């Protein structure tokens, strides 16, 4: 039995179709990632898994239980952290954590170890007595995450848990997720950081209410067949303008101080020589490179005929 079984799930808000009949299964004990642009249907899907909205069509089973019938039984095995999680602003850091540990009836024996682990990740131990209201944005997010992770549910659903969390803490957060997974918990997580997608067992990329690609991150990457080159130069924005105009080019994207160019066909050596000459010294290095999940995502987004931003649905934030 899969931990989560989504079949032809569809959801509309007024005239906007948020999710257009998707099917997905998350295996028992799996760490499954949902990625996709804003408004693609991720939050709607997660909320439906958590019994917080009723599908317009299709079924969702969690641990074999139907989300539209077995609401209470599902809620008993499920942990959910929504995008906007409310802490008690006038309670201190440690009072918040203790409150949720009590709420979830975490046995005292397990508490200490888990709390220690969570404080290590959040670096909030120096600030145990501080009111949640006086924390920085990211510290609040980390406290909210800690509260959600204080117990070990059978199924854990986390909606963009790492938004606003700094890079060092993000790494530690993913280590905690792994250790929770090792205790047998199935985890469904969405993220806007695509480097995190690589840390999932499997991912699904959603776009406009549909699942466009899914599978293990490695197979998603390997399924991308176009030649991708990483270019460096003095002015990468000028390089981007130059390569966007080349006949062989499929897409171009800035990646920090480098430019990634996806070609429709492998360019010849003489083409590179030409490009280097026309760049007037701007193009310095180039080399073929395997695509990352972000490359695959960006290429899909740029070629799915998205058109103007106005083409995206004005529906609820997915």
């Amino acid at each position, binding site marked *: 039995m899969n931990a989560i079984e989504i079949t032809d799930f569809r959801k509309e*808000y007024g005239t906007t179709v948020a999710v257009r009949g998707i099917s997905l299964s998350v295996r028992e004990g799996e760490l499954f990632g949902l990625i*996709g*642009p*804003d*408004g693609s249907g991720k939050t709607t899907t997660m909320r439906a898994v958590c019994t917080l909205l009723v599908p317009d069509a299709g079924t969702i089973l969690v641990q074999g239980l139907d989300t539209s019938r077995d609401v209470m039984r599902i809620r008993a095995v499920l942990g959910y952290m929504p*995008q906007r999680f409310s802490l008690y602003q006038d309670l201190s850091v440690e009072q918040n954590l203790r409150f949720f540990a009590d709420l979830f009836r975490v046995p005292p024996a397990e508490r200490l170890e888990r709390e220690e682990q969570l404080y290590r990740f959040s*670096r909030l131990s120096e*600030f145990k007595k501080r009111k949640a209201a*006086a*924390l*920085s*944005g*990211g*510290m609040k*997010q*980390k406290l909210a995450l800690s509260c959600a992770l204080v117990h070990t549910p059978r199924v854990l659903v986390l909606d*963009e848990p790492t*938004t*606003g*969390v*700094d*890079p*060092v*803490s993000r790494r530690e957060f993913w280590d905690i997720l792994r250790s929770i997974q090792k205790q047998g918990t199935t985890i469904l997580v969405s993220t*806007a*950081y*695509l480097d995190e997608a690589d840390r999932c067992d499997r991912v699904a990329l959603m776009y406009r209410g549909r699942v466009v690609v899914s599978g293990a991150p490695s197979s998603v990457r390997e399924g991308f067949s176009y030649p991708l080159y990483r270019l460096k130069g003095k002015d990468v*924005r000028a390089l981007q303008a130059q390569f966007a105009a080349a006949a062989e080019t499929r897409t171009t*994207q*800035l*990646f*920090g*101080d480098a430019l990634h160019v996806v070609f429709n066909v492998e360019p010849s050596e003489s083409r590179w020589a030409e490009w280097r000459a026309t760049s007037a010294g701007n193009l310095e290095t180039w080399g073929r490179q395997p695509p990352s999940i*972000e490359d695959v*995502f*960006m290429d899909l*987004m*740029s070629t799915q005929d998205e058109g*103007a*931003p*106005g083409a*995206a649905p*004005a*529906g*609820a*934030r*997915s």
Partner: protein
Amino acid sequence: MNTSIHTENLTRKFGEFVAVDRVNISVGSGEIFGFLGPNGAGKTTVIRMLCGLLKPTAGKATVAGFDVYTQSELIKQNIGYMSQKFSLYDDLSVGENFEFYAGVYGLGAGEIAEKRREILGRFGLEAYGSAVTRDLPLGFKQRLALGCAVLHEPRILFLDEPTSGVDPKARREFWKTIHDTAAGGTTVFVTTHYMEEAEYCHRVSIIDGGVIVALDTPGRLKESHGKESVQDVFVDIVGSD
């Protein structure tokens, strides 16, 4: 290059706790200045002081030539500020939010209509004038928040995590807008937790525990730390404590 932002030993305490500790920064006009640091490092506190929203405990700071202690009203007229939680009215439409901010900045009725067309057009929001803000995808809200922050054509923009939670495609479009804005002479002071975005800044500074621990161009930071990316530099500096 004219100086847009200048601080000398800028300090802020909350009770005994020192949130910002003797910060010295100078940012030139038209510069994109990236302000990095782990959660709780003091980034938002510095921005709030520079925007005239929070009084420093000690030290000096001028923004657009105005003193943060005595001329905070003049500062507010000359800057745009986009806070970590976009300050939009969720139950107003896109157009109403825009008009609200235009009114705050004292634009006349004719001016407002013209600005509304121009800015909603520039940010790809024309079709959404009557959409309720609550229903917008995050990337759209973020563009609307930026539109509201630039409608009075400020010389200096403070952007506090403008791209948090925004998808990679929308983030790249946002950064293109930032570059265009800076090319027109506007100074941009921006925080982010996406380290590849740090590479898009002219200079970056890393603050940790209220103290500035690094300040240079992304290129020189990588060189001096012998790292391939600002991400690695950041982890090197911040991860070691």
